[in-house]
């Protein structure tokens, strides 16, 4: 792994690689184990404490605030734990916590619709990304060997350029007087401009475009390893090409398909920028709801409850994904 393109492939591939076994057994002999027990303790502690403080503790706070109620104060929620009184302060605040915000989420069907439509949009756009990404990954894997590093690099490059810029680029294309409509009218396919921007179609296009590298890279790494003699064997035995594709290529590419789908689906569910810029007011997605709840309505407790529910929804796909990756990596070894 030397160039950035490979680093991102590794990034997608190496998520749950367990460390080699012998390293697990003799940590004390590790050469990078600075000056014995205390050094090791310090080495582990620095990143560990940072993550505890800035990743785990904030979640506990989100969970706590989701049980509070909104108030016109600074900070805009009640109760505030009075740490000056120690555990007693915590106990007093805890007695005033309630599940009201969660009950509110189930009562107002805006939230239900936002959750359902997020899952739906994420699901459909994941399938569409697979449809767009598969031929591309297939073409890359079948391209001459000498082209392949460049092709991988070309898939990664857009991933490095700003997400916001890539989404913005589509506004000018999809607008009613935009380039796509101009082109289609010029060719004569349509006579009236299509309304695409501010509909869910624009959101699908945005998600496909932005997450395509996440789909193509794992697909490519599966397809590239694929043993072509199997395909030749099927063809020699008289299997028609489309059948060879379905019976040989697709099953062998399955690990890449599954990994790619998870990598697109999970972040797409909580997406904010794409539905906000391309979807307009008609597209309801949970990331946007959370944003509005927080910035416009300034209802921090409800925003926290929305976040917790979103997290709970995503825990299952995240765990499934991790299990799949662990298996895939073990299969590789």
């Amino acid at each position, binding site marked *: *792994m*030397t160039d*950035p393109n490979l*680093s991102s492939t*590794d*990034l997608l591939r*190496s998520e*749950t690689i367990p*460390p*080699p076994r012998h*390293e*697990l057994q003799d*940590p004390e002999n*590790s*050469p*990078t184990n*600075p000056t014995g027990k205390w050094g090791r303790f310090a*080495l*582990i502690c*620095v*990143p*560990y404490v940072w*993550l505890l403080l*800035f*990743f785990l503790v*904030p979640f506990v706070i*989100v969970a706590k605030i989701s049980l509070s109620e909104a108030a016109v104060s600074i900070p805009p929620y009640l109760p505030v734990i009075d740490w000056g009184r120690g555990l007693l302060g915590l106990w007093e605040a805890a007695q005033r916590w309630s599940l009201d915000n969660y009950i509110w989420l189930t009562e107002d069907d805006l939230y239900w619709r936002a959750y359902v439509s997020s899952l739906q949009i994420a699901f459909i756009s994941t399938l569409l990304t697979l449809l*767009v990404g598969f031929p*591309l990954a297939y*073409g890359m894997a*079948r*391209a*001459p060997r000498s082209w392949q590093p460049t092709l991988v*690099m070309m*898939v990664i490059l857009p991933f*490095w*350029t*700003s997400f*916001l*810029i*890539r989404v*913005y*680029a*589509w*506004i*000018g294309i999809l*607008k009613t*007087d*935009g*380039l796509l409509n101009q082109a289609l009218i010029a060719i004569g396919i349509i006579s009236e401009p299509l309304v695409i921007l501010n509909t869910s179609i624009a959101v699908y296009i945005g998600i496909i475009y932005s997450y395509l590298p996440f789909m193509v890279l794992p697909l490519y790494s599966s397809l590239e390893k694929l043993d072509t003699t199997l395909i030749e064997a099927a063809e020699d035995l008289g299997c028609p090409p489309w059948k060879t594709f379905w019976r040989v290529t697709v099953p062998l590419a399955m690990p890449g398909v599954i990994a790619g789908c998870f*990598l697109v689906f999970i*972040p797409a569910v*909580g997406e904010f*920028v794409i539905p906000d810029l391309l979807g307009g007011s008609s597209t309801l997605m949970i*990331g946007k709801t959370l944003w509005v709840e*927080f910035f416009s309505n300034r209802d*921090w407790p409800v925003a926290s409850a929305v976040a917790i529910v979103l997290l709970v929804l*995503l825990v299952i796909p*995240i765990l499934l994904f*991790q299990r799949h990756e662990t298996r895939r990596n073990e299969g590789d070894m």
Partner: protein
Amino acid sequence: MPSKPSWFNLTSLVLGFSFLYLPIVILIVFSFNESRLVTVWAGFSTKWYAALLQNEQLLEAAWVTFRIGLTSATLATVLGTLAALVLARQGRFFGRTLFSGMIYAPLVMPEVILGLSLLLLFVAIDQNRGFWTIMIAHTTFSMCYVAIVVQSRLSGFDRSLEEAAMDLGCPPVRTFFRITLPQILPGVLAGWMLAFTLSLDDLVIASFNSGPGSTTLPMKIYSQVRLGVTPEINAICTILVVIVTIGVILASLLTKRQRFKRMEEERLAAAHL
């Protein structure tokens, strides 16, 4: 492996890459448009770039973004490399599962949740929001990317050199700086680049954690995009795209040359034996 790609494969490559690149190319082309409209071509002009230089708010935002990027990428690289060493070398310890969970989770966690949770932490400890809060937020999620990039470098790495240095009495910290670090350096640099671009790009997490006087460039672009598409935004975007592209290509050339040099040295060393 066929030596020449079939027409089907070639078509899918051409279509796929046009889809990936056409929007960016169009964006760049229209940043040179004479007209205020971003959809009608009216002749070549660089006036939007000149206008950018006059826009002080924008330059201010760019400066803030750049400073946050530099500090958070550097801190994230240090923390991420430490985390990678822990994951790859420290074996089992109390809470290892939690630790690796905390490394992997931010990679798939929706940004709105990361942004919101950190903001609530800063509010809870009564910390005023601004430069430092965005910096800490960016460090936290980009260190996880660095950790994974560096870890993959560490796991495919010949440990006999380290062991030899230790056997010859080199102290561990020195072994790290003299032997381990030079070998994982390409991974560390790639990690730094990744952290820097992630910080440069981020809109959502920065929006949650920014305060007065710490508006970043993506926030500025976002608020202007909401008002409409203008060639001025196209011009900023073009500059950012060009910077990132040059950076990525330079980084890959540098690491390629380094690899080549090492191979050459190994060949020479082998010839001397």
